[in-house]
């Protein structure tokens, strides 16, 4: 339930294995091979980066918080496990997910205002009439079977702060790692506490020495993670690891006692590393063009 992740609909209905997720996506492709070859789209993660940037723009002039954006991103992901993206107007889905997430996270925005903002950003894809968003809201809620309460890792992170005496730098970095994990499939694959633990480990182990400041993304640490990190991660599995400094040893000791699924933590760290690798290919222009062509050719905005 709301406080109990273990009994939640998120755990019961919205957690997938990698295989299942791949199967779902393959079945979309099978169903409409023509559309897939006619409308190629960037890597899912690159699209997610694009969606996230658009969401941030949309939320800019409204009093929204990170958690509402995170919830919107989860809604979009859930929706696209039920619907082929090539049959939707992603800009409409994005706007609607944002509108719905704001209500759910108790920072509601009026539909007219949301549509107005969305139209300001993407005039060619969003109709002035609010009924499109209203209709898409039905579709979103229906596909999610009204299971709209999302458990985020942010809460676990703040619970871990005193327990692991994390510094404010570490918290800030872990927070950005959590922000970044929504750009991957991780929120459909692992429970929020696994992600929170992963974020803490990344923050503590790979803390960049220079104060570069991480606004929004933790991508700058990607290099460090690639180069030296994986062997430290390997040490997490091996409780007796002698090498790492005391700060990290303490973390390892805590992990060993905590019964957190270490394998899942390591896998999600790898997922994050590969996100930062693929990020280098990101081109906003490319995403925009491909999506624009899709929506316009198929008249998905009508």
């Amino acid at each position, binding site marked *: *339930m*709301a*406080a*109990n992740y273990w*009994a*939640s*609909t998120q755990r019961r209905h919205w957690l997938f294995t990698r295989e299942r997720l791949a199967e779902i996506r393959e079945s979309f492709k099978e169903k409409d091979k023509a559309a897939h070859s006619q409308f190629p789209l960037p890597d899912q993660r690159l699209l997610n980066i694009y969606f996230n940037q658009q969401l941030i723009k949309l939320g800019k002039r409204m009093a929204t*918080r990170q*958690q*509402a954006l995170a919830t919107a991103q989860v809604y979009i992901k859930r929706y696209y496990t039920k619907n082929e993206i090539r049959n939707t107007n992603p800009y409409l889905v994005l706007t609607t997910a944002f*509108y*719905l997430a704001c*209500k*759910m*996270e*108790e*920072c*509601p925005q009026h*539909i*007219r205002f949301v549509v107005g903002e969305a139209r300001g950003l993407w005039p060619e894809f969003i109709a002035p009439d*609010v*009924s*499109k*968003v*209203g*209709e*898409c*809201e*039905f*579709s979103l*809620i*229906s596909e999610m*079977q*009204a*299971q*709209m*309460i999302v458990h985020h890792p942010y*809460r676990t992170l703040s619970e871990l702060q005193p327990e692991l005496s994390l510094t404010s730098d570490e918290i800030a970095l872990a927070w950005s790692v959590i922000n970044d994990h929504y750009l991957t499939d991780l929120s459909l694959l692992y429970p929020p506490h696994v992600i929170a633990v992963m974020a803490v480990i990344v923050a503590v182990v790979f803390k960049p020495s220079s104060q570069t400041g991480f606004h929004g993304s933790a991508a700058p640490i990607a290099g460090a993670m690639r180069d030296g990190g994986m062997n430290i991660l390997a040490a997490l599995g091996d409780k007796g690891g002698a090498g790492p400094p005391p700060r990290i040893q303490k973390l390892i000791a805590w992990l060993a006692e905590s019964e957190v699924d270490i394998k899942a933590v390591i896998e999600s760290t790898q997922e994050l590393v590969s996100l930062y690798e693929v990020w280098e290919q990101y081109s906003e222009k490319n995403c925009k063009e491909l999506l624009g062509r899709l929506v316009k050719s198929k008249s*998905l905005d*009508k």
Partner: protein
Amino acid sequence: MSLTNPPSSSGPLSATTRPTAATVSQSLSLKRSLQAAVEENSRRQTGTGYTSKVRVRDKYHIVGFISSGTYGRVYKALGRNGQGGEFAIKKFKPDKEGDIIQYTGLSQSAIREMALCSELDHANVVQLAEIILEDKCIFMVFEYTEHDLLQIIHHHTQPQRHPIPATMVRSILFQLLNGLLYLHTNWVLHRDLKPANILVTSSGAIRIGDLGLARLFYKPLNSLFSGDKVVVTIWYRAPELLMGSRHYTPAVDLWAVGCIFAELLSLRPIFKGEEAKMDSKKTVPFQRNQMMKIIDIMGLPNKENWPGIVHMPEFNQLQSLAMSRAPNHISRTSNLGSWYQNCLKNGGYSPASSVGTPGDDGFDLLSRLLDYDPTTRITAQEALEHPYFKNGGPISANCFEGFEGKYPHRRITHDDNDIRTGSLPGTKRSGLPDDSLMGRAAKRLKE
């Protein structure tokens, strides 16, 4: 788009209002109008639009109308196609622009209720069967409950007052607190507990209903106050809310439980105030009359029994209220003890009588529920461990166990109102002696 603040909504399954003769033809015309409305909407749908994968009328047979409120209407239904059982379908009315029903975005309370009901699962919380979004309407399909506390209390005033047996009160209260503990441990505040929202199945199980105002209370992004300025039907509204508190807590629900406990014993609302209307500037007025009703029984709150009171936004209002009365016209100390003794006496509650008595333990629990100070008010967890429940033997999960009487079934009407206009008042109870105030008192503000 409805941006006005409509009158109160009733519980999803609350007792219906007008006794209307049910005739076959009326029932048929109700069904026809429902179907006509549905078909009309589907014709309007375009190819690319949203269409529901499940259709309400394919799965459920509507047998009658239960109640209505600003949110829409509640119907009684039977499952079709081998899906047995009785259901209460709560239909949220769509907004209209002119004659055409438009998608205008769902209300936050509908969103909350859908999300929470999908997540909750407890024997003492109303059970959701499914949600169907179809033709611009939301249909929330709940299990059907035959009774509710409002109807049970009312039954005990007819034809003359006869008390609800003490064991039944104890079972009701235990189950209610048990459901509330579940909600609170899951960070859900109900915020609108009242007899009409406490549903009772024919096998005597209590189900907390109407989560339309419920919300999660951990780390709210905005103050819990900002979303909807006033919550909880005024008679059950906690003193800290009346005093303008912005940071309210699960304690508001426990105050309401105290009020319900008292009402089960006395068969009358314990604090039956009149709601002060909001002025044209939409500022929330100080609820002087309601506060006075509480003071009459509980005494004037002070720094001793409520240290935080001096920091309450309406503290000055309270002081001027106290000053405006002659000293001997305002009670400085609690009269709850004598209220309770009177109540037992009038109800015929005693160890020797057939209805039994809630006794001194009952009084202690009541006074802990009606504690002015929200920080010391008993919690659901503590209340369940109170001697009132610990002493006096086992508590049945069937509140009707050992009860000889029979309660009437929920009234189902078959009169044909246009199902697309849900403008009927919410919790109005015609025929009840206390009806005159109910329409006004039940009003509250929704976002």
